[in-house]
């Protein structure tokens, strides 16, 4: 099998490499046990030769490397023990340089070098310098990177750091820094150069391999961060500038992105805060394709976490002007990366805003500034169509709402609506819904007309048709949900001061009246009720107060209400309008405003006569008219007569006889109001009841003709109950004998029509008779009253 796939080959090569290491390790161990330096060097060099392979990917090479690494630790222990091999470390350092191949030779040199430093027979800095220079001899990227990472690892605990035993006598922490920086620079060069090696077609594979090697390079930054002696000063003046210089100069996207991330992750927050300008200054100099939004977002997240770890840190953030530095840097990055998609820029602003909200929650000006920068970026461009970008804008606009749990705060941000203007109509509505939900969730009360003005400007996508979208194209269910939300929102607009409340209502009206026929049925009723609530608050303080400013009066509100309800005529929605007029009429009644109440009734009646055509709708409307009129006490005789006359007239003209009958007996209540001052016109009550009886008769005769049987007796039983009602109320026109007659009539009818027994009306009659029986047995005045009625 000559052709096998690459992975199998690699496994085979790795296995061979491991076998080679194990084999040589066996003889190495024997040599170590025998304290045989020459043999030990021979077999360790052979063992290390396995690392000369070019056939393994970084992952596999690392496995091999680790095997060799473990063996080198034993060798190192042996080197340390001069008694065992009888060779001074200085001589040893010379001796290992005789190894045949350069890679094994350098691994051995680094191993002895570490022992050399530990022995302190030479200054650490000299040995380190020598080693880091010597390693230049290996220029193959993978082999070179692993060799240098070995050097970094074995020298790690022997650096002349502050407090370490290797410090002093000319060895300073700066030597340690210098050594690591040099190793870092060399490694980064090897790493970056790797991409140019190998054929173009393998570019993808090469990038993957490079990416696997990244931590070898990054490791140096980790070592730097662990050096105790690297204080803020050294970090600011040496470490950071040198590292950034290398990052900027290497002009490699992968290296730049990764190493920026490393810097942010390995060095302490306080250093970042104090060197923000330097770190951020490098950003615009990086390749335009580097994903700086992720880098900067991570930096800001770290800083926000840092700020929230202790309240004492805030002054530091203010002192270094962290916000404005970040803000400036983001502006420059966006400018420098001209090809950055809009979503990238907005993501950056979202991160900055998140930072601001966490670190400076009290600085609304910062928030507005971020939004303003975003507006600037968006201006002059067509409305956003990129769904990812709009998602980010929604995130941007939602962040202040989530933070403050209070829309009122967001309403003070001048740039907030300007950002919203850049959203397409659909997203604008999504955002408007987010705003409304935030208000509902937090039960935020919006309490001035100015704020209501801003709010309705923000949610205008829900309030009226925006350009390009007509309500016809909308999904009905979504539309209903949106409009219901707007309706709910109106309950959150409130001020204790009636004057301001009226202003709020006027402002809302100004916005919603342009909503068109589809929206008005949703938005008008809650506004009407809001106004009616205000009327109720003002009840009793009627009359125009002299003065320049006319305060909120019920009269004024009723005028507005008239306008608002009238707007429903474009829908048209006569039934809804009729109900609202009746509500207003009752409110006017409570305010003792007879002409106003009369006017509202007139409007309701006009609608009834001209617009309500459906017979079922008429039935409901007439019941509402009667029900409302029955409760009115503001009317003088004349007006009242006019209205009751109309109402009874409508009742008698309903299409279906049973409906007529019921409406007419309901009208009886218009002439008998069970209040102290209520009207009590027994004769007209009786007239209504008699009339309803006639209609019931007519209904039954019609049933006889059309169905060949008399219809159910329910209507008669209903009327009987009405008689009982007025009988009990003491209407002198309703006597026990009249009731007796009606009972007999029903009984006779029932017997004559046993074929069409109707359970419902039978049960109704039975329970009515049982009621009479109950009243009779009650004793007292009521019992006495019922006594003459015989069952």
């Amino acid at each position, binding site marked *: 099998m000559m052709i096998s796939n690459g992975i199998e080959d690699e496994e085979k090569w790795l296995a061979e490499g491991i076998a*080679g290491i194990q*084999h040589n390790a*066996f003889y190495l161990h024997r040599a170590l046990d025998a304290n045989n330096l020459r043999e030990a060097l021979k077999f360790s060099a052979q063992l290390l030769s396995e690392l000369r392979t070019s056939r393994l990917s970084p*992952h596999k090479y*690392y*496995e091999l490397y680790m095997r060799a690494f473990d063996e080198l630790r034993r060798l190192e222990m042996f080197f340390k023990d001069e008694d065992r091999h009888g060779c001074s470390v200085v001589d040893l350092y010379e001796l290992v340089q005789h190894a045949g191949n350069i890679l094994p030779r350098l691994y051995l040199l680094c191993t002895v070098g570490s022992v050399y430093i530990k022995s302190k027979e030479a200054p650490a800095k000299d040995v380190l310098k020598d080693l880091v220079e010597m390693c230049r001899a290996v220029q193959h990227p993978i082999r070179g990177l692993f060799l240098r990472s070995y050097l970094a690892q074995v020298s790690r*605990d022997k650096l002349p750091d502050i407090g370490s035993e290797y410090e002093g006598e000319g060895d300073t922490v700066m030597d340690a820094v210098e050594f690591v920086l040099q190793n870092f620079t060399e490694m980064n060069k090897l790493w970056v150069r790797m991409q140019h090696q190998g054929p173009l077609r393998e570019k993808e594979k090469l990038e993957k391999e490079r990416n696997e090697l990244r931590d070898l390079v990054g490791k140096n930054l980790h070592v730097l961060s662990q050096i105790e002696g690297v204080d803020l000063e050294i970090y600011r003046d040496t470490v950071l500038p040198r590292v950034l210089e290398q990052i900027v100069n290497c002009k490699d996207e992968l290296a730049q992105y990764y190493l920026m991330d490393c810097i942010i992750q390995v060095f302490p927050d306080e250093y970042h805060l104090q060197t923000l300008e330097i770190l951020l200054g490098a950003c615009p100099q990086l390749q335009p394709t580097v994903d700086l939004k992720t880098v900067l977002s991570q930096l800001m997240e770290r800083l926000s976490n840092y700020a929230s770890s202790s309240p004492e840190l805030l002054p530091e953030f203010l002192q270094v002007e962290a916000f404005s530095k970040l803000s400036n840097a983001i502006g420059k990055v966006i400018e420098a990366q001209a090809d950055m998609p809009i979503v990238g820029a907005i993501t950056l602003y979202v991160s900055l805003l998140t930072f601001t909200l966490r670190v400076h929650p009290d600085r609304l000006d910062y928030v507005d500034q971020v939004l303003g920068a975003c507006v600037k970026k968006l201006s002059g461009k067509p409305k956003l169509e990129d769904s990812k970008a709009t998602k980010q804008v929604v995130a941007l606009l939602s962040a202040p709402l989530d933070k403050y749990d209070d829309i009122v705060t967001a309403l003070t941000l001048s740039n907030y609506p300007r950002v919203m203007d850049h959203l397409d109509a659909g997203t604008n509505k999504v955002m408007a819904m987010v705003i409304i939900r935030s208000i509902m969730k937090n039960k935020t009360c919006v309490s001035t007309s100015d704020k209501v003005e801003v709010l309705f400007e923000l949610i205008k996508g829900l309030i009226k048709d925006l350009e390009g979208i007509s309500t016809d194209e909308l999904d009905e269910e979504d539309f209903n949900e949106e409009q219901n939300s707007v309706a709910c929102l109106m309950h959150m607009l409130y001020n204790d001061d009636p004057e301001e409340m009226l202003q709020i209502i006027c402002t809302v009206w100004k916005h919603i009246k342009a909503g068109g026929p589809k929206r008005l049925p949703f938005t008008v009723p809650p506004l009407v009720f809001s106004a009616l609530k205000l009327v109720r608050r003002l009840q009793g303080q009627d009359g125009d107060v002299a003065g320049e400013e006319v305060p909120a009066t019920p009269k004024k509100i009723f005028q507005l209400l008239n306008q608002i309800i009238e707007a429903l005529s474009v829908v048209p929605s006569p039934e809804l309008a009729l109900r609202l007029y009746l509500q207003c009429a009752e409110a006017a009644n409570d305010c003792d405003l007879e002409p106003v109440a009369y006017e509202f009734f007139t409007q309701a009646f006009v609608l009834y006569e001209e617009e309500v055509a459906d017979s079922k709708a008429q039935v409901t409307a007439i019941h509402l008219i009667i029900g409302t009129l029955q409760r009115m006490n503001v009317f003088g005789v004349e007006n009242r007569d006019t209205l009751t006359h109309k109402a009874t007239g409508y009742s008698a003209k309903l299409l279906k006889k049973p409906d007529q009958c019921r409406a007419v007996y309901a009208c009886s209540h218009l002439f008998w109001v069970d209040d102290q001052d209520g009207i009590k016109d027994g004769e007209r009550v009786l007239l209504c009841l008699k009339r309803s009886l006639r209609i019931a008769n007519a209904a039954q005769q019609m049933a006889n003709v059309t169905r060949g049987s008399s219809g159910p007796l329910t209507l008669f039983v209903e009327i009987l109950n009405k008689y009982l009602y007025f009988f009990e109320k003491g209407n002198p026109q309703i006597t026990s004998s009249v009731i007796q007659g009606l009972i007999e009539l029903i009984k006779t009818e029932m017997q004559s029509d046993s074929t069409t027994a109707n359970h419902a009306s039978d049960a109704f009659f039975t329970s009515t008779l049982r009621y009479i029986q109950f009243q009779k047995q009650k004793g007292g005045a009521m019992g006495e009253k019922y006594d003459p009625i015989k069952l």
Partner: protein
Amino acid sequence: MPSRRRALLKVIILGDSGYVNKKFSNQYKATIGADFLTKEVQFEDRLFTLQIWDTAGQERFQSLGVAFYRGADCCVLVYDVNVMKSFDNLNNWREEFLIQASPSDPENFPFVVIGNKIDVDGGNSRVVSEKKARAWCASKGNIPYFETSAKEGTNVEDAFQVIAKNALKSGEEEEIYLPDTVDVASSSQQRSTGCEC
């Protein structure tokens, strides 16, 4: 086997919250790649060098994988007593280690568990009780258990004593390589395909 070879012991520290260097650091600094440091430990009149590998559990900075697990003599599992998830993850870390390091006798491989940061907020934010931790350790073959504070590193020395003792036990069962009777020493060099550097 000559005893002096066992003087070097490899220890791997795993867990959601890293055991950073000499002390448990409060301020977050990421560890890149695997990092080890050495520590001398006296046990039964003998000096051992512990080679302690710490990873801080960040996959993001582990681009080359975990080949360094191999050959470990002991594995220390660290969790934060204030973070339930770090305790819940102990089992994952244990299993991950056994898969990746593939020790010859996984049943008896020596682990040690350390409950870290017991002093945070005066112990008030603690969510994993000692009893619960010990119960888990018992269920996994009586893993020795220690608790340490973030600031002082109390009990760390005790832990290292046990690590040395346990690692020593396991080291005695190290895999043994027997070479072919044919001497391949010379041919192995020819097989190498690297360049002449």
